[in-house]
Protein backbone atom coordinates (compact mmCIF):
# COMPACT_ATOMS: atom_id res chain seq x y z
CA UNK A 1 0.00 0.00 0.00
CA UNK A 2 1.20 3.48 -0.76
CA UNK A 3 1.60 5.96 2.09
CA UNK A 4 -0.56 9.06 2.31
CA UNK A 5 2.51 11.19 1.66
CA UNK A 6 3.09 9.49 -1.70
CA UNK A 7 -0.52 9.91 -2.72
CA UNK A 8 -0.65 13.52 -1.49
CA UNK A 9 2.43 14.48 -3.51
CA UNK A 10 1.13 12.89 -6.69
CA UNK A 11 0.12 15.06 -9.61
CA UNK A 12 -3.41 13.75 -9.68
CA UNK A 13 -4.03 14.27 -5.98
CA UNK A 14 -2.74 17.82 -6.20
CA UNK A 15 -5.00 18.33 -9.20
CA UNK A 16 -7.92 17.13 -7.11
CA UNK A 17 -6.96 19.59 -4.38
CA UNK A 18 -6.89 22.24 -7.07
CA UNK A 19 -10.25 21.26 -8.48
CA UNK A 20 -12.12 20.87 -5.20
CA UNK A 21 -10.79 24.09 -3.71
CA UNK A 22 -11.46 25.78 -7.05
CA UNK A 23 -15.07 24.70 -7.07
CA UNK A 24 -15.49 25.86 -3.47
CA UNK A 25 -14.01 29.21 -4.41
CA UNK A 26 -16.46 29.50 -7.30
CA UNK A 27 -19.30 28.72 -4.91
CA UNK A 28 -17.96 31.40 -2.62
CA UNK A 29 -17.98 33.81 -5.55
CA UNK A 30 -21.63 33.02 -6.17
CA UNK A 31 -22.39 33.86 -2.54
CA UNK A 32 -20.23 36.98 -2.70
CA UNK A 33 -21.96 38.12 -5.84
CA UNK A 34 -25.43 37.71 -4.38
CA UNK A 35 -24.31 39.94 -1.51
CA UNK A 36 -22.88 42.52 -3.92
CA UNK A 37 -26.09 42.72 -5.91
CA UNK A 38 -27.89 43.99 -2.79
CA UNK A 39 -26.41 47.33 -3.71
CA UNK A 40 -29.21 47.65 -6.25
CA UNK A 41 -31.73 47.42 -3.37
CA UNK A 42 -30.29 50.45 -1.64
CA UNK A 43 -28.22 51.34 1.44
CA UNK A 44 -30.42 49.68 4.00
CA UNK A 45 -30.34 46.26 2.40
CA UNK A 46 -26.59 46.45 1.89
CA UNK A 47 -25.63 47.70 5.32
CA UNK A 48 -28.13 45.40 7.04
CA UNK A 49 -26.66 42.44 5.18
CA UNK A 50 -23.15 43.44 6.26
CA UNK A 51 -24.17 43.64 9.90
CA UNK A 52 -26.10 40.39 9.59
CA UNK A 53 -22.98 38.64 8.32
CA UNK A 54 -20.90 39.95 11.20
CA UNK A 55 -23.44 39.02 13.84
CA UNK A 56 -24.48 35.59 12.60
CA UNK A 57 -23.88 33.09 15.44
CA UNK A 58 -22.43 35.93 17.53
CA UNK A 59 -19.78 36.58 14.92
CA UNK A 60 -18.58 32.96 14.82
CA UNK A 61 -19.98 32.20 11.36
CA UNK A 62 -17.96 34.87 9.65
CA UNK A 63 -14.73 33.64 11.19
CA UNK A 64 -15.46 30.03 10.39
CA UNK A 65 -16.09 30.98 6.79
CA UNK A 66 -12.99 33.17 6.73
CA UNK A 67 -10.79 30.45 8.17
CA UNK A 68 -12.21 27.95 5.71
CA UNK A 69 -11.61 30.35 2.86
CA UNK A 70 -8.04 30.94 3.95
CA UNK A 71 -7.32 27.22 4.05
CA UNK A 72 -8.99 26.67 0.68
CA UNK A 73 -7.20 29.61 -0.84
CA UNK A 74 -3.80 28.58 0.47
CA UNK A 75 -4.26 25.01 -0.76
CA UNK A 76 -5.40 26.24 -4.15
CA UNK A 77 -2.53 28.65 -4.61
CA UNK A 78 0.02 26.22 -3.27
CA UNK A 79 -1.11 23.43 -5.59
CA UNK A 80 -1.07 25.84 -8.51
CA UNK A 81 2.47 26.93 -7.82
CA UNK A 82 3.79 23.44 -7.11
CA UNK A 83 2.21 21.97 -10.23
CA UNK A 84 3.23 24.75 -12.55
CA UNK A 85 6.82 24.57 -11.37
CA UNK A 86 6.73 20.84 -11.93
CA UNK A 87 5.28 21.33 -15.40
CA UNK A 88 7.87 23.86 -16.39
CA UNK A 89 10.61 21.50 -15.30
CA UNK A 90 8.97 18.56 -17.10
CA UNK A 91 9.08 20.37 -20.43
CA UNK A 92 12.72 21.41 -20.19
CA UNK A 93 13.96 22.76 -23.51
CA UNK A 94 11.10 24.15 -25.55
CA UNK A 95 10.53 23.69 -29.24
CA UNK A 96 11.24 26.72 -31.35
CA UNK A 97 7.80 26.40 -32.87
CA UNK A 98 4.57 25.62 -31.11
CA UNK A 99 1.20 25.65 -32.87
CA UNK A 100 -1.71 25.30 -30.51
CA UNK A 101 -4.54 23.02 -31.51
CA UNK A 102 -6.92 22.98 -28.58
CA UNK A 103 -5.29 24.89 -25.76
CA UNK A 104 -6.37 28.49 -25.29
CA UNK A 105 -4.85 31.67 -23.97
CA UNK A 106 -6.91 31.03 -20.85
CA UNK A 107 -5.68 27.49 -20.36
CA UNK A 108 -2.05 28.35 -20.96
CA UNK A 109 -2.06 31.38 -18.65
CA UNK A 110 -3.69 29.86 -15.57
CA UNK A 111 -0.66 30.33 -13.35
CA UNK A 112 -0.27 33.96 -14.45
CA UNK A 113 -3.95 34.86 -14.11
CA UNK A 114 -3.90 32.99 -10.82
CA UNK A 115 -0.97 35.00 -9.45
CA UNK A 116 -2.52 38.26 -10.64
CA UNK A 117 -5.69 37.30 -8.82
CA UNK A 118 -3.67 36.65 -5.69
CA UNK A 119 -2.42 40.24 -5.77
CA UNK A 120 -5.90 41.44 -6.57
CA UNK A 121 -7.42 39.61 -3.60
CA UNK A 122 -4.91 41.22 -1.24
CA UNK A 123 -5.73 44.62 -2.71
CA UNK A 124 -9.46 43.93 -2.60
CA UNK A 125 -9.29 42.93 1.07
CA UNK A 126 -7.15 45.98 1.84
CA UNK A 127 -9.76 48.08 0.10
CA UNK A 128 -13.06 46.83 1.49
CA UNK A 129 -12.22 44.68 4.50
CA UNK A 130 -9.19 46.20 6.18
CA UNK A 131 -9.64 49.76 4.99
CA UNK A 132 -5.94 49.97 4.37
CA UNK A 133 -6.28 51.04 0.76
CA UNK A 134 -8.48 54.02 -0.15
CA UNK A 135 -9.15 54.45 3.58
CA UNK A 136 -10.84 57.78 2.89
CA UNK A 137 -13.98 55.87 1.85
CA UNK A 138 -13.87 53.34 4.69
CA UNK A 139 -14.96 55.20 7.77
CA UNK A 140 -18.53 56.17 6.99
CA UNK A 141 -21.43 55.26 9.27
CA UNK A 142 -25.07 55.32 8.26
CA UNK A 143 -28.03 56.80 10.10
CA UNK A 144 -28.39 53.70 12.26
CA UNK A 145 -24.77 53.88 13.28
CA UNK A 146 -23.82 50.93 11.14
CA UNK A 147 -20.66 50.74 9.03
CA UNK A 148 -21.86 52.36 5.81
CA UNK A 149 -20.75 49.77 3.35
CA UNK A 150 -23.11 51.16 0.74
CA UNK A 151 -21.51 54.56 0.74
CA UNK A 152 -18.03 53.13 0.83
CA UNK A 153 -18.78 51.21 -2.34
CA UNK A 154 -20.48 54.10 -4.06
CA UNK A 155 -17.72 56.56 -3.25
CA UNK A 156 -15.02 54.11 -4.27
CA UNK A 157 -16.49 53.35 -7.64
CA UNK A 158 -16.91 56.98 -8.45
CA UNK A 159 -13.12 56.98 -8.84
CA UNK A 160 -12.26 56.06 -12.44
CA UNK A 161 -8.92 54.48 -11.48
CA UNK A 162 -10.55 52.18 -8.97
CA UNK A 163 -13.22 51.19 -11.49
CA UNK A 164 -10.54 50.52 -14.06
CA UNK A 165 -8.61 48.36 -11.60
CA UNK A 166 -11.68 46.29 -10.82
CA UNK A 167 -12.68 45.94 -14.46
CA UNK A 168 -9.20 44.68 -15.20
CA UNK A 169 -9.29 42.30 -12.27
CA UNK A 170 -12.63 40.94 -13.41
CA UNK A 171 -11.26 40.39 -16.89
CA UNK A 172 -8.47 38.34 -15.37
CA UNK A 173 -10.98 36.47 -13.22
CA UNK A 174 -13.02 35.74 -16.32
CA UNK A 175 -10.01 34.39 -18.15
CA UNK A 176 -9.07 32.22 -15.18
CA UNK A 177 -12.56 30.83 -14.71
CA UNK A 178 -13.11 30.38 -18.43
CA UNK A 179 -10.76 27.42 -18.31
CA UNK A 180 -11.10 26.57 -14.63
CA UNK A 181 -14.71 25.50 -14.25
CA UNK A 182 -14.95 22.82 -16.94
CA UNK A 183 -11.39 21.79 -16.18
CA UNK A 184 -12.26 21.06 -12.55
CA UNK A 185 -14.90 18.58 -13.62
CA UNK A 186 -12.46 16.80 -15.93
CA UNK A 187 -9.93 16.60 -13.11
CA UNK A 188 -12.49 15.17 -10.74
CA UNK A 189 -13.26 12.52 -13.32
CA UNK A 190 -16.75 13.73 -14.07
CA UNK A 191 -16.83 12.61 -17.63
CA UNK A 192 -19.60 11.16 -19.70
CA UNK A 193 -20.23 11.42 -23.41
CA UNK A 194 -23.69 12.81 -22.70
CA UNK A 195 -22.77 15.44 -20.12
CA UNK A 196 -19.18 16.42 -20.84
CA UNK A 197 -20.10 18.58 -23.85
CA UNK A 198 -22.62 20.41 -21.63
CA UNK A 199 -19.99 20.99 -18.96
CA UNK A 200 -17.53 22.25 -21.55
CA UNK A 201 -20.10 24.84 -22.67
CA UNK A 202 -21.43 25.64 -19.22
CA UNK A 203 -17.99 26.37 -17.72
CA UNK A 204 -17.19 29.41 -19.82
CA UNK A 205 -20.86 30.53 -19.68
CA UNK A 206 -20.86 30.53 -15.88
CA UNK A 207 -17.57 32.38 -15.84
CA UNK A 208 -19.00 35.09 -18.08
CA UNK A 209 -22.17 35.40 -15.97
CA UNK A 210 -20.13 35.74 -12.78
CA UNK A 211 -17.88 38.38 -14.25
CA UNK A 212 -20.82 40.35 -15.67
CA UNK A 213 -22.52 40.13 -12.30
CA UNK A 214 -19.50 41.48 -10.47
CA UNK A 215 -18.89 44.17 -13.05
CA UNK A 216 -22.48 45.35 -12.88
CA UNK A 217 -21.80 47.05 -9.52
CA UNK A 218 -18.81 49.28 -10.34
CA UNK A 219 -20.11 50.01 -13.82
CA UNK A 220 -23.59 50.88 -12.59
CA UNK A 221 -22.03 53.27 -10.08
CA UNK A 222 -19.53 54.72 -12.50
CA UNK A 223 -22.27 55.48 -14.99
CA UNK A 224 -24.53 56.86 -12.27
CA UNK A 225 -27.21 54.21 -12.47
CA UNK A 226 -26.89 53.50 -8.77
CA UNK A 227 -26.13 55.90 -5.97
CA UNK A 228 -27.53 58.95 -7.80
Amino acid at each position, binding site marked *: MRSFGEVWRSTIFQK*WVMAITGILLVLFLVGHLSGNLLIFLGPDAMNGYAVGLRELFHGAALWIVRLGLIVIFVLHVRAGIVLSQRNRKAKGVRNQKFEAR*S*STVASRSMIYTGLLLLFYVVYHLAHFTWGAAHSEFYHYTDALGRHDVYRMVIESFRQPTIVATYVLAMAVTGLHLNHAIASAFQTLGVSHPRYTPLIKTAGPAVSILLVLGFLSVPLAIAFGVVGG
Partner: protein
Amino acid sequence: MNLRLHIWRQSGPTDTGMMKTYDLADVSEHMSFLEMLDVLNEQLSERGEEPVAFEHDCREGICGSCGMVINGRPHGPLPRTTACQLHMRTFKDGDEIYIEPWRARAFPVVRDLVVDRSSFDRIIQSGGFVSVNTGNAQDGNTLPISKKDADYAMDAAACIGCGACVAACPNSSAMLFTSAKIGHLGALPQGQAERYDRAENMVLTMDAEGFGACTNHYECEAACPKGISADFIARMNRDFVMAGLLNR
Protein backbone atom coordinates in the same frame (compact mmCIF):
# COMPACT_ATOMS: atom_id res chain seq x y z
CA MET B 1 8.47 21.18 -55.05
CA ASN B 2 11.38 22.91 -53.33
CA LEU B 3 11.54 23.17 -49.58
CA ARG B 4 13.59 24.84 -46.89
CA LEU B 5 14.01 22.60 -43.87
CA HIS B 6 15.02 23.74 -40.41
CA ILE B 7 16.08 20.66 -38.50
CA TRP B 8 17.27 20.17 -34.93
CA ARG B 9 20.78 18.73 -34.96
CA GLN B 10 22.29 17.36 -31.78
CA SER B 11 25.17 14.91 -31.96
CA GLY B 12 24.55 13.25 -28.59
CA PRO B 13 22.74 13.47 -25.26
CA THR B 14 25.27 15.90 -23.80
CA ASP B 15 25.50 18.17 -26.83
CA THR B 16 23.42 21.36 -26.66
CA GLY B 17 22.11 21.10 -30.19
CA MET B 18 20.88 23.73 -32.64
CA MET B 19 18.62 24.25 -35.64
CA LYS B 20 20.27 23.85 -39.04
CA THR B 21 18.85 24.84 -42.37
CA TYR B 22 18.81 22.64 -45.47
CA ASP B 23 17.37 23.31 -48.90
CA LEU B 24 15.82 20.34 -50.63
CA ALA B 25 14.82 20.42 -54.28
CA ASP B 26 12.47 18.29 -56.40
CA VAL B 27 10.36 16.78 -53.68
CA SER B 28 7.44 14.75 -55.06
CA GLU B 29 4.01 15.33 -53.57
CA HIS B 30 3.49 11.55 -53.35
CA MET B 31 6.42 11.05 -51.00
CA SER B 32 5.80 10.44 -47.37
CA PHE B 33 7.39 12.90 -44.98
CA LEU B 34 9.95 10.30 -43.95
CA GLU B 35 10.77 9.50 -47.57
CA MET B 36 11.46 13.19 -48.00
CA LEU B 37 13.91 12.94 -45.08
CA ASP B 38 15.38 9.78 -46.67
CA VAL B 39 16.14 11.79 -49.80
CA LEU B 40 17.76 14.51 -47.71
CA ASN B 41 19.81 11.91 -45.85
CA GLU B 42 20.99 10.30 -49.09
CA GLN B 43 22.16 13.67 -50.29
CA LEU B 44 23.88 14.44 -46.99
CA SER B 45 25.61 11.05 -46.96
CA GLU B 46 26.83 11.46 -50.50
CA ARG B 47 28.26 14.84 -49.53
CA GLY B 48 30.03 13.15 -46.60
CA GLU B 49 27.84 14.86 -44.00
CA GLU B 50 26.12 12.94 -41.26
CA PRO B 51 22.49 12.18 -42.02
CA VAL B 52 19.68 13.28 -39.72
CA ALA B 53 18.92 10.56 -37.18
CA PHE B 54 15.23 9.88 -36.73
CA GLU B 55 13.28 6.90 -35.44
CA HIS B 56 11.11 5.03 -37.90
CA ASP B 57 10.23 1.46 -38.58
CA CYS B 58 6.89 0.20 -39.87
CA ARG B 59 6.04 3.35 -41.80
CA GLU B 60 2.41 2.30 -41.60
CA GLY B 61 1.47 4.39 -38.59
CA ILE B 62 1.28 1.56 -36.08
CA CYS B 63 4.69 0.86 -34.51
CA GLY B 64 4.91 4.26 -32.85
CA SER B 65 8.62 4.66 -33.64
CA CYS B 66 8.48 7.81 -35.67
CA GLY B 67 7.83 11.08 -34.04
CA MET B 68 8.96 14.59 -34.67
CA VAL B 69 7.48 17.98 -34.14
CA ILE B 70 6.73 19.36 -37.59
CA ASN B 71 6.00 23.06 -37.73
CA GLY B 72 5.14 23.14 -34.07
CA ARG B 73 2.88 20.13 -34.09
CA PRO B 74 3.76 16.55 -33.19
CA HIS B 75 3.52 14.39 -36.34
CA GLY B 76 2.71 17.51 -38.35
CA PRO B 77 -0.42 19.32 -39.41
CA LEU B 78 -2.88 16.52 -40.22
CA PRO B 79 -5.16 15.14 -37.52
CA ARG B 80 -4.87 11.44 -36.66
CA THR B 81 -1.80 10.97 -38.83
CA THR B 82 1.69 9.84 -37.84
CA ALA B 83 4.73 11.46 -39.43
CA CYS B 84 5.29 8.37 -41.58
CA GLN B 85 1.76 8.61 -42.96
CA LEU B 86 2.00 12.33 -43.62
CA HIS B 87 2.54 12.91 -47.30
CA MET B 88 4.18 15.82 -48.99
CA ARG B 89 1.00 16.76 -50.80
CA THR B 90 0.11 18.47 -47.52
CA PHE B 91 2.88 21.01 -48.21
CA LYS B 92 3.47 23.34 -51.09
CA ASP B 93 6.39 24.60 -53.11
CA GLY B 94 8.55 27.07 -51.20
CA ASP B 95 7.36 26.02 -47.75
CA GLU B 96 9.66 26.30 -44.77
CA ILE B 97 9.36 23.35 -42.46
CA TYR B 98 10.59 23.22 -38.86
CA ILE B 99 11.48 19.72 -37.67
CA GLU B 100 12.25 19.21 -33.99
CA PRO B 101 12.38 16.33 -31.53
CA TRP B 102 9.81 15.54 -28.84
CA ARG B 103 10.50 17.79 -25.87
CA ALA B 104 10.20 16.45 -22.36
CA ARG B 105 12.60 15.92 -19.51
CA ALA B 106 11.41 12.32 -19.36
CA PHE B 107 12.34 11.89 -23.06
CA PRO B 108 16.01 12.92 -23.24
CA VAL B 109 17.34 13.49 -26.74
CA VAL B 110 19.63 10.68 -27.89
CA ARG B 111 20.59 12.22 -31.19
CA ASP B 112 18.98 14.74 -33.58
CA LEU B 113 15.30 13.77 -33.62
CA VAL B 114 15.71 10.53 -31.66
CA VAL B 115 14.59 10.61 -28.04
CA ASP B 116 14.69 7.97 -25.31
CA ARG B 117 11.14 6.92 -24.51
CA SER B 118 11.97 4.11 -22.10
CA SER B 119 10.07 6.00 -19.40
CA PHE B 120 6.89 4.79 -21.17
CA ASP B 121 8.06 1.20 -20.80
CA ARG B 122 8.66 1.71 -17.10
CA ILE B 123 5.14 3.05 -16.66
CA ILE B 124 3.75 -0.11 -18.24
CA GLN B 125 6.10 -2.28 -16.20
CA SER B 126 4.67 -0.81 -13.01
CA GLY B 127 1.17 -2.08 -13.68
CA GLY B 128 0.04 -1.92 -17.31
CA PHE B 129 -0.89 -5.59 -17.54
CA VAL B 130 -3.23 -8.26 -16.26
CA SER B 131 -1.30 -10.61 -13.98
CA VAL B 132 -2.11 -13.87 -15.69
CA ASN B 133 0.52 -16.50 -16.37
CA THR B 134 0.50 -18.51 -19.56
CA GLY B 135 -1.79 -21.45 -19.07
CA ASN B 136 -4.03 -19.77 -16.46
CA ALA B 137 -6.73 -18.87 -18.92
CA GLN B 138 -10.27 -20.18 -19.11
CA ASP B 139 -12.19 -20.50 -22.37
CA GLY B 140 -12.35 -17.18 -24.18
CA ASN B 141 -16.14 -17.17 -24.38
CA THR B 142 -16.70 -17.91 -20.69
CA LEU B 143 -16.58 -14.23 -19.92
CA PRO B 144 -19.11 -12.31 -21.99
CA ILE B 145 -18.01 -8.74 -22.68
CA SER B 146 -20.50 -6.40 -24.28
CA LYS B 147 -19.59 -5.04 -27.66
CA LYS B 148 -19.75 -1.57 -26.15
CA ASP B 149 -17.19 -2.40 -23.49
CA ALA B 150 -14.94 -4.19 -25.97
CA ASP B 151 -15.10 -1.22 -28.34
CA TYR B 152 -14.44 1.23 -25.53
CA ALA B 153 -11.44 -0.79 -24.36
CA MET B 154 -10.20 -0.98 -27.93
CA ASP B 155 -10.46 2.81 -28.30
CA ALA B 156 -7.95 3.12 -25.46
CA ALA B 157 -5.85 0.11 -26.46
CA ALA B 158 -5.22 1.66 -29.88
CA CYS B 159 -2.39 3.72 -28.33
CA ILE B 160 0.87 3.23 -30.24
CA GLY B 161 3.12 4.65 -27.53
CA CYS B 162 4.65 7.24 -29.84
CA GLY B 163 4.76 10.00 -27.25
CA ALA B 164 3.04 12.67 -29.33
CA CYS B 165 0.75 13.37 -26.37
CA VAL B 166 3.74 14.25 -24.23
CA ALA B 167 5.30 16.33 -26.98
CA ALA B 168 2.08 18.22 -27.61
CA CYS B 169 1.42 18.93 -23.96
CA PRO B 170 2.78 22.28 -22.79
CA ASN B 171 3.49 20.47 -19.50
CA SER B 172 4.97 17.33 -21.08
CA SER B 173 2.42 15.29 -19.21
CA ALA B 174 2.05 11.58 -19.96
CA MET B 175 -1.50 11.39 -18.69
CA LEU B 176 -3.05 10.41 -22.00
CA PHE B 177 -0.62 7.55 -22.50
CA THR B 178 -0.98 6.32 -18.92
CA SER B 179 -4.73 6.73 -18.82
CA ALA B 180 -5.15 4.87 -22.10
CA LYS B 181 -3.65 1.73 -20.59
CA ILE B 182 -5.48 2.17 -17.29
CA GLY B 183 -8.69 2.78 -19.23
CA HIS B 184 -8.20 -0.17 -21.57
CA LEU B 185 -7.61 -2.72 -18.82
CA GLY B 186 -9.95 -1.10 -16.32
CA ALA B 187 -12.85 -1.27 -18.75
CA LEU B 188 -12.62 -5.04 -19.09
CA PRO B 189 -13.64 -7.64 -16.52
CA GLN B 190 -10.18 -9.25 -16.80
CA GLY B 191 -8.60 -6.07 -15.52
CA GLN B 192 -10.83 -5.56 -12.47
CA ALA B 193 -8.80 -7.50 -9.93
CA GLU B 194 -5.88 -5.12 -10.20
CA ARG B 195 -7.78 -2.03 -11.27
CA TYR B 196 -6.92 0.24 -8.35
CA ASP B 197 -3.40 -1.04 -7.75
CA ARG B 198 -2.76 -0.49 -11.42
CA ALA B 199 -4.01 3.09 -11.34
CA GLU B 200 -1.99 3.90 -8.25
CA ASN B 201 1.25 2.29 -9.35
CA MET B 202 1.19 3.57 -12.92
CA VAL B 203 0.38 7.15 -11.91
CA LEU B 204 3.09 7.26 -9.26
CA THR B 205 5.62 5.80 -11.71
CA MET B 206 4.57 8.37 -14.28
CA ASP B 207 5.19 11.11 -11.72
CA ALA B 208 8.53 9.64 -10.70
CA GLU B 209 9.67 9.64 -14.33
CA GLY B 210 9.36 13.40 -14.33
CA PHE B 211 6.35 13.96 -16.55
CA GLY B 212 4.25 17.04 -15.88
CA ALA B 213 0.71 17.29 -14.56
CA CYS B 214 -2.40 17.64 -16.68
CA THR B 215 -3.88 21.09 -16.95
CA ASN B 216 -6.59 20.03 -19.36
CA HIS B 217 -5.38 21.77 -22.48
CA TYR B 218 -6.47 18.76 -24.54
CA GLU B 219 -3.46 19.23 -26.80
CA CYS B 220 -2.68 15.53 -26.31
CA GLU B 221 -6.04 14.45 -27.62
CA ALA B 222 -5.70 16.74 -30.63
CA ALA B 223 -2.21 15.45 -31.40
CA CYS B 224 -2.88 11.75 -30.82
CA PRO B 225 -2.50 9.93 -34.14
CA LYS B 226 -4.96 7.32 -32.90
CA GLY B 227 -7.53 9.84 -31.68
CA ILE B 228 -7.53 8.63 -28.09
CA SER B 229 -9.92 10.70 -26.04
CA ALA B 230 -8.93 12.73 -23.01
CA ASP B 231 -12.01 11.23 -21.35
CA PHE B 232 -9.66 8.43 -20.38
CA ILE B 233 -7.71 10.96 -18.32
CA ALA B 234 -10.89 11.82 -16.42
CA ARG B 235 -11.43 8.15 -15.84
CA MET B 236 -7.89 7.73 -14.56
CA ASN B 237 -8.30 10.72 -12.23
CA ARG B 238 -11.35 8.97 -10.82
CA ASP B 239 -9.66 5.59 -10.53
CA PHE B 240 -6.59 7.03 -8.85
CA VAL B 241 -8.53 8.75 -6.12
CA MET B 242 -10.83 5.76 -5.71
CA ALA B 243 -7.67 3.71 -5.27
CA GLY B 244 -6.64 6.02 -2.44
CA LEU B 245 -10.01 5.44 -0.78
CA LEU B 246 -10.64 1.79 -1.51
CA ASN B 247 -7.26 0.18 -1.79
CA ARG B 248 -6.02 -1.69 1.22
